[in-house]
């Protein structure tokens, strides 16, 4: 009986094996499309739980990768948010630039600074406006904060601006109240990123208080009068008891300027008013109330001052023409003659800008 059972089991095993082999052979021999259809049916029915389990496993396996991806996305968002603050600053700069355009009127060429990686990038700037845009050599380059420099080389679509950090830069300047004139040039630190400005050729009897604004005088014909150059932050040195050199904090920073205006044919009379400090309603609300001050009335002294300024501009134009004929260098060789103007109004005494 046991032998019969064993024989039956052996026969059963053989038939099972033969049947499985036959089915396998049929699966191998049947058309591929049929095999694919059968496989798809099995995956969606009998094997679906296993497929689902493997999908979960794959998700679990990639969880670390996904965590890294999420962390990367988080870092990217953090970087983006940091960039957004930069964009906000850039927008503010562009808005101020736009306001400056309106104030200056026609005669400017907007340009974008194309940053380079060289350490001397602060001394010269590559601008994306060139001859095709109307840029010419010696055109002043400004930002809403003040003077950047002048165009040194012009290509068809780009130009190189020499900034105030360049060792060869010089500009004839005058204090905002018009009392002290001199030459502004870069300090001799050598490092472009730490280069400051100094106000030279100041006679010993003329003094400037800290915070006084120094503007371009307009002499030489390169830089129009009224463009802020810097603010006095102290005395740099005194030479032999006859000259005092002041240290200036530059009004505009070439290292952070992203957009600039190239002045080309701008109306000179609008430049000082364009750079005059302006206050909006928020500033007015934040400023503590001041005692009422009588509005300055036109006086003969003021009229005389305006007449003197007009004459000075005329002199500047003449000097510019003469300088253009004699000297094509961007640097302004001679300091402006010190012209004693009448004492300014008390409100403008601290160097609040050109009125």
């Amino acid at each position: 009986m046991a032998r019969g059972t064993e024989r039956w089991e052996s026969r059963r095993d053989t038939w099972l094996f033969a049947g499985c082999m036959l089915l396998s052979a049929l699966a191998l021999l049947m058309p591929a499309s049929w095999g694919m259809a059968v496989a798809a049916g099995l995956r969606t029915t009998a094997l679906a739980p296993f497929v689902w389990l493997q999908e979960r496993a794959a998700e679990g396996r990639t969880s670390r990768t996904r965590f890294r991806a999420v962390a990367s996305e988080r870092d990217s968002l953090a970087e983006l948010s940091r960039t957004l603050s930069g964009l906000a600053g850039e927008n503010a700069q562009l808005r101020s630039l736009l306001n400056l355009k309106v104030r200056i009127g026609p005669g400017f060429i907007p340009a974008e600074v194309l940053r380079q990686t060289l350490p001397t990038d602060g001394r010269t700037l590559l601008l994306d406006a060139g001859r095709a845009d109307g840029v010419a050599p010696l055109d002043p380059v400004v930002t809403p904060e003040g003077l950047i420099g002048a165009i040194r080389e012009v290509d068809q679509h780009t130009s190189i601006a020499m900034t105030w950090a360049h060792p060869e830069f010089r500009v004839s300047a005058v204090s905002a109240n018009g009392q002290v004139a001199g030459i502004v040039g870069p300090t001799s630190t050598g490092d472009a990123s730490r280069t400051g400005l100094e106000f030279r050729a100041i006679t010993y009897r003329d003094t400037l208080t800290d915070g006084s604004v120094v503007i371009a005088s307009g002499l030489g014909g390169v830089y129009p009068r009224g463009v802020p150059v810097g603010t006095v932050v102290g005395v740099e040195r005194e030479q032999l008891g006859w000259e005092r050199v002041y240290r200036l904090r530059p009004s505009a920073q070439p290292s952070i300027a992203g957009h600039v205006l190239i002045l080309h044919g701008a109306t000179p009379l609008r430049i000082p008013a364009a750079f005059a400090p302006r206050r909006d309603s928020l500033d007015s609300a934040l400023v503590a109330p001041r005692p009422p001050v009588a509005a300055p009335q036109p006086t003969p002294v003021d009229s005389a001052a305006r007449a003197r300024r007009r004459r000075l501009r005329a002199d500047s134009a003449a000097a510019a023409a003469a300088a253009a004929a004699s000297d094509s260098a961007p640097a302004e060789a001679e300091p402006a003659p010190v012209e004693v103007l009448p004492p300014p109004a008390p409100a403008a005494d601290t160097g609040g800008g050109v009125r």
Partner: protein
Amino acid sequence: MTSAKAANRLQLTVALGLLLFLQFYARPRLFEGRYAPDFVMVGLVLLALRSGPGVGALAGFIVGVGSDALSPARFGAAALANTMVGYLAALTRAFFFADNVLVNAGFLFGAVWLRDLIVLVASGSGDQGLATSLLIDAPLRALTTALAGTVLLVLFGGWFRIRLDQ
């Protein structure tokens, strides 16, 4: 006797379920690449050694069809290969003392290598690829499978123990 058989079947079912879990969940998470151990092959071999040629062949066919469905390069090749592996694994029980861990590891190694050989041949792989697969890939895959099976037998040896009286 009946309760003992039921308990053994329950243990076997749980063990096979564990192997399926390892194959479809632990393997993708713990191992990467083509040399990962094949836990389904471990279950097939151990089931064939325990049950017999017919059941081994049938189990091999089912496992093979499932493998073909999941990787349908040549439908039927894995079914053929696993059927032969299951049947032959059960037949070898008469020639070897299959309750030894090392013998089981050898069974696993040979089963994986034979399965790969049959699948490659049935799938029509080229000579160059066939030689490389059989001499490099298949032995490594078989080795990892044998190691994994050995570990499982050490841990759950009682559940897969072959009882010649059954």
